């Protein structure tokens, strides 16, 4: 009896309107909007810092690592504006170029300057240099179609149109018609269907003849996925990486000044300025549910937190297989969650360098060397890297997306020294020969660094510290199941009204008062904020609260 009275007391004392599990950028986005609307909101984060996969951490004295995500484009500008992220310290520095280094000593580059890019591509193929504009226009058109969809809560296809894939395109057509494109013709709809279902290799083949052009562009289509360039559906992933913008330049990428953690730091600051509360260092072990209604959280230390609405920023698997008990869930939903594809395929190295790497091909000072750098030679090599992954090995010739943010961002490393971020595709979550060990992790890191070293005259000698992360570490640290960077594959069967699972694409769950706001929901992964803002809008709707911001 005494105990029960105690619970009641705490309930009255620490009751929130909304409790958000997880302080990733999406959880924080939801939190900011809800706090802005006047609700009493708490964010409960496992680590003693917020940010999830958008963090800056000093893991080596003097150096700041963008520990997981490393470049910004997808973050919706309306969210940036609504949350006053500039006032709270966020700034994005646009890319100046990007390059692929070739085995024959040449390099292939894109620049901010259109004419320079044309001539750079024309060195390999004049036709491709021209085709790049065609490609750019077509991708841009698809981005324009998709843009209004990002902000949208996907309609329920069972109350909408056909349940099959076509429903999606009815949906696209309907909204695109309202868009400034002035409605889409049949042709554009066919293009959309093709783009969303094709392999990136087939897609690029329609535009380009040169291997290096194709492989340079194909990178965006395999980052973070368990698809290869020949896999149907990979073209969509490319689109996913093109639909962001920097100051109105669609498809452009930039560095977040101070690392990706500046984004979540600014969000946290914005949240606190609206009287939001963050409970860091508090892993949630269970969501309290009674009569199919959630009402609170249990923390690892046994504390309980009560709230009218609970929102999970964790991926859908972690939410429903780890913190909600199976008995609370309808079995078809439980099965759908179990079947949700969330395969890890990426690794990450964060490297502290004592000097600027000198590349064998790219001259010092060339802006091509300041953005994303690659060393893959052709699509077949890329597909081969994928084959290794399927065999349960890390790729012998991995696709790397590396960059040196410290060239443009003066806050990342001590003067004269540099920070290098290396994203690696593909790395399996489980190794075929007996699983990951500490030794194999190191061997994997060494393998990647050796490969990079082959393209530089000094790289091997200037490595001061390297943090090596496989999908295992990504899972352990961020909580991304299997280390999948998008909180779930971006394939047709898991997008729009199928994300995360059919019937539950509207940020709601089978449990009353329990919502989802992470990248497992529409429109998916990346540091975008759209899932978080969309979830906030749904919650406000359910609470009959009106809000008028740039996004909502």
């Amino acid at each position, binding site marked *: 009896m005494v105990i029960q009275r105690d619970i009641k007391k705490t309930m009255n004392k620490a009751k929130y309107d909304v409790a958000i599990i997880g302080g990733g950028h999406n959880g924080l986005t939801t939190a900011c909007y809800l706090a802005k609307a006047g609700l009493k909101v708490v964010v409960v984060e496992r680590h003693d810092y917020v940010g999830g996969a958008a963090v800056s951490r000093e893991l080596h004295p003097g150096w700041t690592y963008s520990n997981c995500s490393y470049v910004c484009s997808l973050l919706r500008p309306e969210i940036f504006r609504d949350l006053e992220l500039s006032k709270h310290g966020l700034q994005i520095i646009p890319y100046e170029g990007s390059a692929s280094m070739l085995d024959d000593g040449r390099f292939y580059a894109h*620049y901010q300057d259109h004419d320079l890019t044309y001539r750079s591509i024309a*060195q390999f193929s004049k*036709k491709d240099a*021209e085709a790049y504009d065609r490609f750019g*226009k077509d991708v*841009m058109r698809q981005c*324009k179609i998709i843009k209004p969809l990002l902000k949208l809560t996907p309609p329920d296809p069972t109350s909408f149109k056909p349940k099959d894939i076509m429903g999606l395109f009815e949906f696209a057509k309907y909204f695109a018609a309202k868009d400034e494109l002035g409605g889409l013709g049949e042709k554009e709809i066919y293009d959309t269907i093709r783009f969303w279902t094709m392999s990136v290799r087939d897609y690029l083949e329609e535009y380009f003849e040169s291997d290096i052009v194709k492989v340079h562009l194909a990178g965006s289509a395999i980052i973070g996925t368990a698809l290869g360039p020949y896999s149907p559906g990979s073209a969509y992933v490319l689109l996913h990486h093109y639909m962001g913008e920097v100051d109105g330049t669609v498809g452009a990428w930039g560095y977040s000044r101070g690392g990706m953690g500046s984004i979540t730091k600014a969000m946290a600051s914005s949240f606190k300025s609206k009287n939001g509360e963050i409970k860091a260092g508090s892993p949630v072990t269970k969501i309290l549910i009674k009569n199919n209604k959630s009402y609170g959280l249990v923390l690892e230390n046994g504390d309980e937190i009560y709230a009218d609405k609970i929102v999970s920023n964790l991926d859908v698997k972690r939410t429903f297989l780890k913190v909600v008990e199976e008995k609370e869930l309808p079995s078809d939903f439980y099965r759908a969650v179990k079947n949700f594809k969330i395969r890890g395929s990426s690794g990450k190295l964060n490297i502290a360098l004592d000097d600027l790497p000198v590349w064998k091909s790219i001259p010092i000072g060339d802006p091509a060397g300041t953005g994303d750098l690659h060393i893959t030679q052709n699509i077949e090599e890329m597909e081969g890297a994928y084959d290794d992954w399927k065999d349960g090995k890390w790729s012998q010739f991995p696709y790397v997306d590396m960059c040196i943010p410290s060239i443009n961002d003066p806050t990342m490393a001590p003067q004269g020294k540099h920070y290098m971020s290396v994203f690696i595709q593909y790395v399996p979550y489980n190794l075929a020969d007996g699983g990951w060990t500490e030794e194999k992790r190191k061997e994997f890191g060494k393998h990647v660094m050796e490969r990079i070293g082959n393209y530089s005259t000094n790289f091997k000698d200037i490595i001061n510290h390297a943090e090596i992360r496989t999908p295992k570490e990504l899972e352990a640290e961020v909580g991304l199941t299997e280390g999948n960077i998008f909180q779930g594959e971006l394939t047709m069967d898991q997008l729009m009204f199928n994300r995360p699972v059919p019937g539950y694409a509207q940020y709601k769950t089978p449990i009353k008062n329990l919502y989802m706001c992470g990248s497992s929901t529409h429109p998916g992964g990346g540091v975008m904020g759209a899932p978080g803002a969309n979830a906030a809008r749904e919650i406000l709707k359910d609470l009959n609260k009106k809000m008028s911001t740039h996004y909502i």
Partner: protein
Amino acid sequence: MNTTKISYKKPLLETPFHERTSEHCYSNDWYRWAGYKVAKEYSSTELEYTSMRNTAGVIDITPMHKYDIKGEDAKNFINKLITKDISNIQSNQVAYGIWCNEDGMVIDDGTIFCFNENHFRIFCAERNLNWFSDTGTGFNVTIEDISSSIAALAFQGPLSCKILNLLQVKNIENLKPFHFDSYKIEHHNVIISRTGFSGDLGYEIWCDPSQAIDVWDNLFKFNRDYKVLAAGMNALDMVRIEAGFIQPNADFMSAEQALRPNRMRNPYELGLGWLVNLDKEYFTGKQALIRHKEKGPEKKLVGLDVEGDKPAVGSVLYDNSKKNIAKEIGIVTAAMWSPVLKSNIAIGFVNKEYYKLGSNVYAEIYHPEELDYRKIWAECKVVKKQFFNNPRRNAIPAFI
């Protein structure tokens, strides 16, 4: 061949005339054209313009795209590409043509030089290698982008022939409009065509980049008597508007480049129906063009004679003299005060009900005046686009 190594420090290329153009380009105000630096204005647009209407002006048009079409199917290829019929074209003749996509939407226009049955050369404003290559499948032709291997000058104005004649360019006065031939300027072999954008007497001179500077210098040789000026892109824009020549991505969006499908235009909408020959056998866009013609254009690019003297740049066009009840019916794509015509002229799109010659529409002109805008509601009369067409343009022999 241009083998300049690319460097990020020099994003723009210099044409073979750069040594001279940079000397003349007092304002150092460069315009980007296909990756090259060309002068926007050398010293005074007004004087540069005047030279083309009074003596002769020299314009560096090297950045123009140039494609060689060779092979036994060269002529068939061109006939599939463009909308008009060139079956009867002769060697040394130039055809002006447009090409459309399968939906009958205009991609670009250009001049097509016939060297012989098996060799044509296309000059155009936009890059077209992809489009030409797509069109060329199944034909026995090679399509080569030779843009950087030829230096080019437009030499336009009433004295252009006279000066070439003084330079001993033999028989140049008898070169007919839309024809070309090989000539010598000093000891340099050049190709000269009687073509150009000015709507006046004028030539285009094509030479090897190594001879560029010499050819340039020759054109200025008689400046003591007849003042020739280097003219920039601004002056060129003036003469081309007066002549009623329209420009892709200025007056209409090229169908290859338009992001928004509803911004593409068919030839009838551009007033270029006369370049379409629907009796010709299959060519790209034919089916769609038959439909477009039947339907008639919903809007059309027309000439506008604008009231007053304030250029209607970027103006929206309306249907009524009373602003408060007026409805939007079009848009101006190019506008200027014409010094030679002493008229306020413009080119613009108007809706169906208004494209008949003589129709009245109204432009809202925002005229900047000492940090303020004067809003002018100007009456415009729909007229022919070709505002200026001097008889000396087509006279044979040409004036020497």
